[in-house]
């Protein structure tokens, strides 16, 4: 038994770190976050060339064929670099839904396009309730006589919908949860930006006004659709949690560096225990988040029955931990930490969005309670 990275995994992490820090230095992050979709084609193409866009999918769909654990450590490095844009929505969320729910043909066409970097996508799940519980899906799709489906209703908080070429939409067909693939240019579909605190990822309201899609666009209906969504949410949750760990590491590095160099009362502020203890607490939170994220990734990659609990432990811990780390980082950096020029707020903003995505700490504690209390 070994709890840590193998040599191959260390190599993957190192190459991810080199790639993302070279391609996404902070000036580039700041440039991209001012663009409409917080991503541009040139950078996405580079991601695809490196294999990141197909990281966990089989080679038969032009994927890279790595495991969930290897994906998580790559995401940790993306989080450290604060890589903006639709990677998690497209690859982890939409990619996994397609892999689990799609037919052979759908996978060749759509998952293949994602792996090759030719298409971007996202999953439209949340509605007015803001709930990540699949029972909260209310938007209806009506089965027409010609076999097609007509969707009416609003999806909210759809991450990166603006840049998506197609959306995977969770709907109700009669009483069953189902998944429909909807091209972005479908008549009756409108996307409206929902401005949020995270400047590196966009949220959208997606409205469906009698949007019609052919029967061939149904991915799954009933238990298969639920299972695919649940699987995708767990994979995305683990990826996001690992990304949060990387963000916490970067915040700690920035903060410790500042505490060593910034002088007050004639000495570096890192000399003072009140400052040291905040840095120590940041490391404490970081290491717990890292251990639990690695564990969740491992459990998921092994299809262990305990994976669900492990994912909830990791997400609940990181949700509060990243937020706290952001608070401490800004506090230690004082007035400097409160400026726009300082990078801390970009991570602090990302921490807020990440805390909420795929269920916040309260959501995951309740999900865990159902496992450990209700049995």
């Amino acid at each position: 038994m070994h709890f840590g990275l193998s040599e191959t995994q260390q190599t993957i992490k190192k190459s991810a770190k080199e790639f993302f820090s070279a391609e996404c230095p902070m000036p580039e992050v700041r440039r991209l976050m001012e663009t409409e979709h917080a991503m541009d084609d040139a950078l996405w193409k580079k991601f695809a060339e490196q294999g990141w866009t197909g990281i966990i999918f089989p080679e038969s769909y032009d994927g890279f064929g790595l495991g969930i654990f290897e994906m998580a450590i790559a995401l940790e490095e993306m989080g450290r670099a604060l890589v903006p844009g639709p990677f998690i929505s497209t690859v982890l969320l939409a990619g996994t839904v397609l892999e689990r729910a799609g037919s052979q043909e759908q996978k060749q066409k759509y998952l293949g396009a994602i792996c090759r970097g030719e298409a971007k996508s996202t999953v439209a799940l949340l509605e007015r309730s803001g709930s990540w519980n699949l029972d909260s899906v209310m938007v209806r799709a009506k089965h027409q006589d010609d076999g097609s489906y007509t969707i009416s209703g609003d999806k909210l908080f759809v991450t990166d919908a603006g840049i998506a070429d197609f959306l995977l939409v969770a709907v109700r067909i009669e009483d069953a949860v189902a998944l429909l693939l909807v091209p972005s240019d479908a008549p009756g579909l409108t996307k409206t930006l929902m401005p949020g605190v995270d400047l590196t990822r966009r949220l959208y309201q997606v409205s469906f006004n009698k949007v019609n899609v052919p029967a061939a666009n149904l991915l799954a209906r009933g238990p298969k659709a639920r299972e695919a969504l649940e699987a995708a949410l767990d994979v995305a949750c683990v990826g996001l949690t690992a990304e949060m760990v990387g963000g916490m590491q970067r915040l700690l590095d920035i903060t410790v560096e500042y505490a060593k160099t910034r002088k007050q009362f004639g000495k570096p502020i890192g000399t003072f225990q009140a400052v040291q203890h905040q840095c120590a607490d940041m490391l404490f939170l970081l290491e717990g988040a890292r251990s639990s994220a690695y564990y969740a990734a491992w459990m998921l990659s092994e299809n262990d029955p305990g994976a669900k609990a492990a994912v909830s432990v990791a997400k609940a811990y990181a949700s509060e931990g990243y937020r706290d780390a952001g608070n401490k980082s800004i506090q230690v950096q004082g007035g400097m930490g409160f400026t726009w020029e300082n990078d801390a707020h970009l991570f602090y903003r990302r921490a807020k969005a990440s805390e909420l995505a795929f269920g916040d700490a309260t959501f995951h504690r309740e999900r865990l309670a159902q496992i450990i209390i209700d049995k």
Partner: protein
Amino acid sequence: MDLNLSAEETKFRDELAAWLKANVPSDWETHRLHDTMHDRFDFLRKWQKRVFEGGWAGVAWPKEYGGRGAGLMEQVIFTEEMAKASAPPLANVLGLALIGPTIVAYGTGAQKKRYLANILSGDEIWCQGFSEPNAGSDLAGLRTEARLEGDHYIVNGQKVWNSYGWAADWCALVTRSDPASQKHKGLSYLLVDMKSPGIEVRPLRQLTGESEFTEIFFRDVKVPAENVLGTAGDGWNVALGTLAHERATLGVSAQIAIRRQIDRLIELSHEVEANGTVAAQDPLTRQKLAQSYIENEVLRLNQMRAVSKIIQTGAPGPEGSILKLAWSESNQRFQIVAQEMLGAYAQLTGGDFAIDAGAFSYAYLRTRGNTIEAGTSEIQRNIIGQHVLGLPKSY
């Protein structure tokens, strides 16, 4: 990353589980809840002997000194299996977890031969003589004097907060052997026979009402010069070795102990009321129980990662302070959850209405000491700041 047990580890686990099934005393729970501290200790000492004779004590210690010669991972499996089997802990806590490993690391061949097997069998119980009335967090300020006279040291001074001082046959004593020295230099780590003339042990009653700790007075106590562990004058580094083991390893058993209490509290949540409903169905209680579970799980995972790192690097590092903080502070938070859920009954220490014979009220009081013993939380955060993150020294 591979959390599956190897074939060898699986074999070890299965053999141990079978042995425990056949040997764990069935009346431990009664002794745990109802014995006096001294009676309970006698019970645990007998149990340790049985474990030793079964060949399971000192899993990671060298075979030639009575250990099993297996790895640190097997040591962790041992602790986990003991918990699964609801086995009593071993009596010689400090000898097994702290002082033995330090003797393995720093001892001469003769010292290892003399002391290690008796630690494992429980025939010789150990205590630690580190803290003094004026040297707590600032341990390097200790003044207990060891004066070399011929082939003996003459020891004078006072130690305090000695767990198991009342049961100890031997004491791992940190002394100042160079009277002109200051701070970390000029200290020597002595192995002292508690039956030596001039030693007086007094119980120290703590806020729980028990006397787990003692004060030890040394008046012209003769200690053979050969009883120095490591090099004379290098006692600080030897002591740091012990403290690193303390932080790295005590957490494993602490995590398991807290987990058992969480499991018990979850069981009780189906029986008691909170906010007008069964506690198990009260959303607020569910959140708190889940949070306790999460913190305990994160502690377990941090431990696993730390053990893997120790196996690779060979020795526990300053990161052990993270584990110490985690078990002590999460335990205090959990005890508050237990107190809140059990409501009025939580405060009872005995009598017909006490839950589990008052185990939770005792734990509430005892846990208060967790962030003080084995290095205060403040000291742990200083260590993390200064020795892990490399921030400037503040003292």
